[in-house]
C-alpha cells in the first residue's frame, strides 16, 4: 500500500495522565479505612469531564497507517481540545496536508468519544485551519450525523476503526512499540 505520509515525524508523548487510574494507585498507599472513604466520595461525585479527560480518551488511538498514536504523531494535543458547556470541540492536525486518512482518523475519534462520553455532550471534530487541502470537505463529512451513522453501519469501515481504537484505552500511559 502506498502510504500517504511514509516518514512521519514522531513526537515525544506528553507526561502521562494523572487522572483516574493513577489516582487509584495513590489511594492504595493510604490506610484502608481512608481508602474506602475516598472511593465512595469518588463514586458520588464523579470528576467533571474536562479537556484533559477528553485528551486522555483519544491520545492513544492508533494512526491508521503507522504503529504510532495520534499523540506521538502530533495529530492531536491537549491544547486542541475545548469544552464549552456541553459541546466538545476537537481540532486535529493531519500529518500532511493531502492526508487521505483524515476522515478515518476523525471518525475514529468521534466513535471513541461517542462511546466514552455521557450522551449530553455534542461533539464537533475539525481539522486545524490551514492544515489540510480539503479542509471544508473533511470537516463537513466528519460532522454530518447521517454520514457518520451510515459509515458506522459499514462493517469494513468499522473494522478499520476498531483497529485504530484497540490502543485507545492506554490513555497515553504506554508507548506503542514501533515496527521491529
Amino acid at each position, binding site marked *: 500500500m502506498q502510504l500517504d505520509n511514509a516518514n512521519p515525524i514522531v513526537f515525544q508523548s506528553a507526561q502521562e495522565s494523572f487522572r483516574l487510574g493513577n489516582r487509584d494507585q495513590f489511594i492504595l498507599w493510604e490506610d484502608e479505612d481512608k481508602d474506602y472513604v475516598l472511593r465512595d466520595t469518588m463514586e458520588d461525585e464523579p470528576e467533571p469531564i474536562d479537556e484533559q479527560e477528553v485528551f486522555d480518551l483519544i491520545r492513544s488511538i492508533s494512526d491508521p497507517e503507522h504503529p504510532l498514536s495520534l499523540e506521538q504523531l502530533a495529530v492531536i494535543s491537549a491544547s486542541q481540545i475545548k469544552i464549552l458547556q456541553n459541546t466538545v470541540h476537537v481540532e486535529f492536525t493531519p500529518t500532511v496536508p493531502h492526508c487521505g486518512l483524515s476522515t478515518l482518523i476523525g471518525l475514529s475519534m468521534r466513535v471513541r468519544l461517542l462511546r466514552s462520553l455521557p450522551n449530553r455532550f*455534542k461533539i464537533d471534530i475539525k481539522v486545524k485551519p490551514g492544515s489540510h487541502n480539503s479542509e471544508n470537505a473533511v470537516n463537513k463529512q466528519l460532522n454530518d450525523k447521517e*454520514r457518520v*451513522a451510515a459509515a458506522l453501519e459499514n462493517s469494513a469501515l468499522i473494522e478499520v476503526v476498531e483497529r485504530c481504537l484497540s490502543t485507545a484505552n492506554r490513555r497515553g500511559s504506554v508507548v506503542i512499540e514501533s515496527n521491529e
Partner: protein
Amino acid sequence: MRSHVGHTDVVWQTAWNPTKPLLASCSADKTVQLYSYTFTSPPLFSVATNISTDHTRTVRSVAWAPSGKALATASFDSNISIWEPSRDESWEDIDAEHIEWECVGTLEGHETECKSVAYSSDGTLLASCSRDKTVWIWEGVSTPKFILFIPTSKGKILVQPDAEFECLGVLMHHTQDIKHVAWHPKEQILASASYDDTINLYVDDPDDDWYPVAKLIGHTSTVWCISWSPCGNYFTSSSDDLTVRIWIRVKETRGDRWDCIKILKEHERPIYSVTWGKGQSGKDSLGWIASTGGDGKIIVWNIMGKGADIETIKLASLEASHGVSDTNSVSWCLHEGMENILASAGDDHTVRIWEVIPV
C-alpha cells in the same frame, strides 16, 4: 406531551397518515412503528403495529401515499420498500389499529444509502434520493397488484411480479449527497435538498424527461430538509448553516422564479427538520412552521402576510425536546382540528407528541 418508546435505536423520522389516525416512525433499528391515536383533546396514542421490514440497514425515511393506503420506506441499504394492507378489506371500513402491512414491492436502483422518499400529491409518482447524488422518479401502476421494472443498460427488467413501479427518470443535478425530496402539495413539482448546499426544483417536460427548472443557492452548508406551504406558493428549508429560510414562487412569463424572502436564525446546531402545516391562526395565516435539530430545540412560527411581504411570529420555543439528545424530525398532524399537534423523533429512541396551546 407524550413520549413513546418502542424503537431500540435512533428514530429518524415520523409521518402522519393522511386519512387514518395512524402515525409511522422509522429507526436505525430497521423497523417501522405504527401508532394509532384517538380524536380526543389531547389525542391518546398507542402502538398499533411494528413492521420489522426487510431492510438490512437503518430505515431513514418513511412516507404515506395521499390515499393513506400505502407506505414507502427508504433505507441505508439503498432500497425502497412499498407496504400495503395485506387483507383485501375496503380502506374505509378497515380499523387502523388492526391493519397488517405487507411488502408489495422493493425498488432497487440507488447505489448507496437512500435518504428520503416522497409521494406526489396525486399519489401517482414516488421520488427517492440517495448519497449516490441521484433523484429517481418512479411511477406506480396502481392496483390491484404491481409489477416492478428496473431500468438497466439492457432496458427495463422485471424484478418482482407482485408490484409494479416504473422508473421515469434518474436526475443527476447535484454534485453531492441528496438529503431530502419533497413534492409540491398540488402540482407535479419536486424539490430536492443536498449536501452541496443547494436546492433543486424539477418539473416534467411533457415531450421529454424530468428536468431541473431551478437551482437555488443561498444556504452556506448542507440543506437537510424542505417543506412546502399548504398553499404551495412557498416552501421552507433548513440547513447545517443554522438557518431556516422561506422561499417564494414568483410567476414570470418565462417560467417561475424562486426567491428567498426570510432567513430565520434561532438554532445553535444543525437544523435537521422543518415542517409547514396549516396551523390554527385563522384564514389570514399562511400556516405554522416548526423546526428542530441538533440543539434539541423545537421552534414554532406563525407565518402571516401576502406575497413576498410576510411576517414570522414566534409562537413557541421548546428546549431539550428529547432531553440531551438530537431531535431528527418534526411533522405536523394532518387531521382536521388537530393542526396544533406535532410529532418529533429523536436520538433517544423515542417519538414524542406535542400540542401547541395558545397562552
